[in-house]
């Protein structure tokens, strides 16, 4: 009997603290699988965010840094610039990456910093109890938009992939989801590509993973993943928003 599926080596034995059905666990596994498949665990350094995934430093087997809120791309830059032989990744939520850390995100992308950024977008601030995120949908009810997000009051959600794809800097910007098996497998491929790009010194690679927050959305895990399909993905379409190498290759043909 051969093992067809098991927990990747790059995940530790620590028990995940996430809520039942929280896709963080799936995304952590996809990152760990990419690290295992590329054989880079020994030289990988991860940067954990502030948010539900703050304790990611306990879950990955590689060296880990706990960054300040939003500043993971800056700290990752510091690590990568002084240890370019290491593979450096950040793992960030929507508040971390698109609110407080927006400057660090944009500038790391603009500099084409040779790092891998995993952006978990669940349209809400989970850790602090369900407040509005820069990616919360119009009309979405959260603790700080109790009457539904009013675009006349606080504007529209930010589509990070579209935003970053306008920059010269980034090598690869893609949006995926983990709400069903097909999407999880595609997400795994995109995440592995984002790591492989760094191994091949191609530059800044970001994968936005449309995720869910059953607890703060007030839904069961199943209903939450259905809402991803019905409401999140239409607003945040899946796809590759920038692939510099692929574009160059297409041009040459």
């Amino acid at each position, binding site marked *: 009997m051969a093992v067809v599926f098991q927990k990747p080596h790059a995940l530790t034995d620590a028990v995940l603290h996430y809520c039942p059905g929280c896709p963080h666990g799936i995304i952590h596994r996809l990152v760990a699988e990419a690290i295992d498949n590329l054989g880079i665990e020994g030289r990988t350094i991860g940067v954990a965010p502030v948010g539900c995934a703050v304790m990611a430093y306990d879950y990955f087997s590689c060296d*880990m*840094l706990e960054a300040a809120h939003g*500043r993971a791309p*800056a*700290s990752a830059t*510091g*690590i990568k610039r002084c*240890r370019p032989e290491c593979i450096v990744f950040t793992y960030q939520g929507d508040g971390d990456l698109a609110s407080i850390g927006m*400057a660090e995100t944009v500038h790391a992308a603009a500099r084409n910093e040779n790092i891998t950024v995993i952006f978990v977008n669940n349209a809400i601030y989970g850790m602090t109890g369900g407040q509005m995120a820069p990616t919360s949908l119009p009309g979405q009810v959260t603790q700080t938009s109790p009457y539904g997000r009013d675009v006349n009051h606080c504007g529209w959600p930010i589509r990070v992939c579209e935003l970053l794809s306008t920059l010269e800097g980034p090598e690869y910007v893609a949006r995926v989801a983990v709400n069903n098996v097909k999407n999880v497998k595609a997400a795994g491929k995109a995440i592995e590509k984002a790591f492989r790009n760094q191994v091949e010194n191609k530059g800044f690679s970001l994968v936005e993973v449309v995720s869910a927050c059953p607890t703060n959305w007030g839904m069961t895990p199943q209903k939450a993943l259905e809402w991803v399909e019905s409401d999140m993905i239409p607003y945040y379409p899946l796809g590759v928003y920038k692939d510099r190498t692929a574009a160059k290759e297409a041009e040459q043909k």
Partner: protein
Amino acid sequence: MAERILMKGNEAIAEAAIRAGCRHYFGYPITPQTEIAAYMAKKMPKIGGVFLQAESEIASINMVYGAAAAGMRVMTSSSSPGISLKSEGLSYIAGSDVPAFVVNVQRGGPGLGGIQPSQSDYFQATKGGGHGDYHMIVLAPASVQEMASLTIKGFNLADKYRMTSMILADGTIGQMMEPISFEDAEIESYDKPWALTGTGMERKHNIVNSLYLKPDELERTNFARFEKYKTIEENEALYEAYRMEDAEICVVAFGIASRVAKNAVAAARSEGVKVGLIRPITLWPFPKKALRQAAEQVKAFVSVELNMGQMIDDIRLATECTRPVSLCNRTGGMIPSPDQVLESIREAAKGVN
């Protein structure tokens, strides 16, 4: 005869950092310290080092945090408002026990303030600056030579004690040009088994972190850190004593204020006033022992500062308020003249006779 180079204060810091083995600089322009960034921008690429102008002071301190966690000698520099921006990062660096080197070339404040020199970030530097219980080693150069030698010392102390060393300079010394030498520089090297270097699949992963959700654990780390600080206070306090042997009045001043004060002390001596100067070189650890001893001998202290009275509190604490301490101050970018300090000395002398 040692080789002497004429250098500007800010550039002396940059050159000394390079000689101390620093190959990574992350910073952002702000007057009056941008020469440090400019010097690094020119030099680092030539020596295989890294210079990066970050998007903000916040980004640069977090880049420093990352590189420091990766075990590298790394620095940033800024001035007052930029240091405020770095407060959170400095607290994270302290809470994670990683070494870093930060330079504050002070300007007038608060707010946008002015671009002329001040010493009004004394509280910010010596009481930690960011949130939580912690300290940084704070070094106060009073000459371009000290800008260089204290930089080298700062890197050594940071690595030795796994904390931030901060040079608390002012715009005057930053812009001043004086001949200096690097020849007595002693570069110390410390192992960093805790650093993030990649496990190589040969060891358990290292985690650099300041989060401890269990309160008893967080309390333990705080107490342990303060045990370390106690050792530093006992062993690393530095100061200069000038004409203190028979002094009845003690002037206390650091940085540019100390140079002005020295002139005033000399002038007062020629008038027959028995006055001396204690110049703290480390502001944290503050030379408490030296001041306590001085309090047994002198009748009054005069604090000369370019702020509204900050170090004066530490003088009172160190001497346990056993002697009167008066303040001779200018701020906003103004510098006290030797005459102004002399007048304060005369007042203090009158007060005790």
